[in-house]
């Protein structure tokens, strides 16, 4: 290694790989329901889409993606909840990997929840 630039390149390449270990990270927490019903309804691709998308969007310092058990609304699975400090929880229902990408773009990055994917819209 001849320069700081090379050192920096390794750091950047690696940072996304270790940032997961900072459990304090994130003003935003994305929680994917991963109980039997969620998994059956396709929660795994949704979870993976969030993990990858958040990282690609460079949001891994800000957003923590995690999973939880049954949220209790099995007919709406896959369910994803977004927690933000000082704000009401947003619950997205019937999620897909594509919708996840949109949520990352518009909500996590852009700061605007997507109303039509939320539970409020689904129960109307």
């Amino acid at each position, binding site marked *: 290694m001849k320069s*700081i630039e090379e*050192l920096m390149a390794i750091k950047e390449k690696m940072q996304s790989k270790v940032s997961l270990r900072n459990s304090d990270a994130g003003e935003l927490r994305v929680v994917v329901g991963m109980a039997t019903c969620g998994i059956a309804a396709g929660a795994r691709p949704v*979870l993976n889409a969030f993990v990858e998308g958040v990282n690609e969007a460079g949001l891994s310092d800000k957003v923590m993606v995690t999973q939880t058990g049954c949220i209790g609304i099995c007919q709406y699975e896959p369910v994803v909840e977004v927690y933000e400090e000082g704000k009401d929880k947003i619950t997205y229902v019937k999620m897909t990997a594509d919708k996840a990408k949109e949520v990352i773009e518009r909500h996590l990055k852009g700061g605007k929840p997507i109303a039509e994917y939320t539970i409020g819209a689904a129960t109307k």
Partner: protein
Amino acid sequence: MFRIHALICGGTGCTSSGSVRIREALEKEIKEKGLEEEVKIVQTGCFGLCSLGPIMIVYPEGTFYSMVKPEDVPEIVEEHFLKGRPVERLVYHDTGADETAQHAASLSETNFYKKQKRVALRNCGVINPENIDEYIAMDGYFAIAKVLKEMTPDDVIDTLNAAGLRGRGGGGFPTGKKWSFAKASVSDKKYVVCNADEGDPGAFMDRSVLEGDPHAVLEAMTIAGYTIGADEGWIYVRAEYPIAVKRLQIAIEQAREYGLLGKNILGTDFNFDIHIRLGAGAFVCGEETALLTSIEGNRGEPRPRPPFPAVKGLFGKPTIINNVETYANIPQIILKGADWFASMGTETSKGTKVFALGGKITNTGLVEIPMGTTLREIIEEIGGGVPNGKKFKAAQTGGPSGGCIPASLIDTPIDYENLGKIGSMMGSGGLLVMDEDTCMVDLAKFFLEFTVDESCGKCTPCRIGTVRMLEILEKITSGNGEMEDLDKLEELANHIKSSALCGLGQTAPNPVLSTLRYFRDEYIAHIKDKKCPAHVCKKLMQYVIDPDKCRGCSACSRACPVGAISGEIKKPFKIDPSKCIKCGACKATCKFNAIDIQ
């Protein structure tokens, strides 16, 4: 892209409680479930709660599993990794947690961790110590880069002085000052040495740093080399630390491959390389001059100072020698600045200190606290208190060179000066907690036995004086002590302190002096009343049968291995004190609680 990182402790404690088998089981299970792309298994260094091992931490939540068994692994994978439900029964339950506290305590929220401030241990239990890239991801090697590109040797020394870093190996000598002496020495060759001998019984701070974050030590030694003008470094580590040695070897090789050790480091004309020397584990070899003598290939005996190593050290050349933990602080001081470091701690003692917490305490393990934290905070909050409802009696810091801190001084803020004032010392960081069942005379005897064994024999006060002191303690604990013995102990102690050649002898009397200072009444009880108040000294104990409680069942007389108990059935039995060997078998057998210790 991994969505879960499962960190398994690969420190010495967890390795011996079976963490390797956990890792194997986990690898197998993850493969079977087809999760290889989603779950990453990382082997780390010590998390600090070794008595609860094997320990596993699952991120991103930071779920903290303790005492994991291979049989538990399928459940963790199925329930937690697949379905997102942490396995409650394996989650560490916080000591003293109230009902509102989360059960699935994430590591950083436990009482054990909350009051800690991890500087020297910051990467331990976070990164894989066998992967240099993970160290770099945590800003590793950016300090040496900064030093080489932006700082002169004097800048480094000024920074360390402004930070107020003092040696963590025991003496507390200002590190910047030590480096400036070595820099000022003129020579064609200089050396940088790392003291990883860690001979204090019960201490394992340095081992954990080496096992958990070896690159931090290599980086700091390289900074030291640049600062004093040395191109060669030696790490002296005891052979009893095989995991630490292996990780150091791997780290050195990786650093060489990356050109972070060797010639022309980071494209500059600075060269530096590091070698390892294994020590055979003699306590005296932790003393700096004995250590250097040992690296040179000779019997590890101290030599007189001056000349100090900074002037005439390894192979007669100017040398700096620092402790592992001292080094582990340095890269961060360079990166975050002297002010950051100096903002932690007390007036005279800056930064943090790692302690190995042991003895009669709920959470044994490794803790790093800001200087100035009180003993009470360490014992009651971080350590979770003294178990089994017993009372805290005293704590020993500094191991065989240190002294005890009695319960009355539990609110003393811990720093170099305060510990010195109350007759103890910081030492390298062993912190032994004792409850009411500890006999302080016996404790002093224990440490003195250690120094008698470990004395190298080069000088008379230590070789003979400590033996004489030990003889007096034996006399006292066997009930033959006289009051003059206490004066004799003190007189001998003071002579040894002032005339021994090296620190081993000079500090050997400390445990006796400090217990005499705070627990003189216990010595007097042994001498005048022929009693050991804590019922530890066997020769002063007597087993007696309470005739009112004894039903004459004869169970005790059958249990006694030496036939010391006799009597008639249904009448109170009796113990013959001349035959009794005080093994306690009778007391353990009696159903009526009729046997007392006096």
